[in-house]
């Protein structure tokens, strides 16, 4: 960890406060019934910001080598996209055969 000067615990409190503020903003967006497309973009963007903050600051990925961070974030993201397309295709195939 490179943060050896200052209060070493400060980053957790700051991250905690930012995460709470983002969560409140997400709840407000849901409560105010924003147009659906805006709501989706807004919530997904904030979800990714929260995930990045937890991974970077709480799990210390920002202090690790970029190769480790890429393995974690890139691996899960790419596999999710492949999984989704795979599920969609397989489901269509199975449902077609079940209906015949």
């Amino acid at each position, binding site marked *: 960890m490179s943060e050896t000067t200052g209060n070493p615990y400060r980053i957790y409190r700051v991250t905690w406060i930012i995460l709470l503020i983002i969560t409140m903003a997400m709840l407000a967006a849901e409560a105010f019934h924003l147009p659906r497309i805006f*709501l989706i973009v807004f919530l997904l963007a904030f979800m990714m910001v929260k*995930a990045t903050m937890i991974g970077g600051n709480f799990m210390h990925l920002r202090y690790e080598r970029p190769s480790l961070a890429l*393995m974690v974030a890139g691996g899960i993201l790419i596999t999710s996209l492949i999984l989704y397309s795979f599920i969609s295709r397989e489901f269509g195939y199975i449902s077609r055969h079940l209906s015949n």
Partner: protein
Amino acid sequence: MHGSDAAVLEAHWGGGAAPFGASWQKTMMWIFIVTDGLLFSGLLCGYAFLRHISPVPWPRQSEVFSIPFIALMTFILITSSMTMGTAVTAARLGDRRRAINNLAFTIFGGLSFLGCQAYEWSHFIHEGARLTSNPWGPPQFAQTFFVLTGFHGSHVFSGLVILIITLIRTSMGKTPAQGVEMAGLYWHFVDLVWVFIFTLFYLL
């Protein structure tokens, strides 16, 4: 060893004894987290697809769940992640008392979260939700709820077991700082998964 071979091994992508610049324990923990992350990504992809193809309109979550109560659960989990991070740094700096206190706070947070989840499940079941049907429309709604939150809850439970063992061993002086860090990585992962479930299942 040839000079260029040594340069490749020392290069960022060259591999060698520590390709990620981390101990083998940490590397293994990260590999485990990635594979566990893929499990949840599969579950969330399945949920997204079932919702997408549902012929019956998906229920509005705020009419089924108490969103302020789910927000409270989120608050508890984020706070427990903050105390966990503090415990990891305290253990690294040799401040055992602070590490033990923050581990205890984290365990309290985890227990509170599980208590809230048990209440939510019992309330949901009491209102008629089952694996095969529910009063709000598509049966996939309750199915995905039970699977997603059930898997996540089981991870919270196993995280709690790990944390309790870590707390006991740390208070006995038997767990090195790295042991607390490994437990912390798992706990933050549980928090990370909740961020996705909270957004994709409860809010969207």
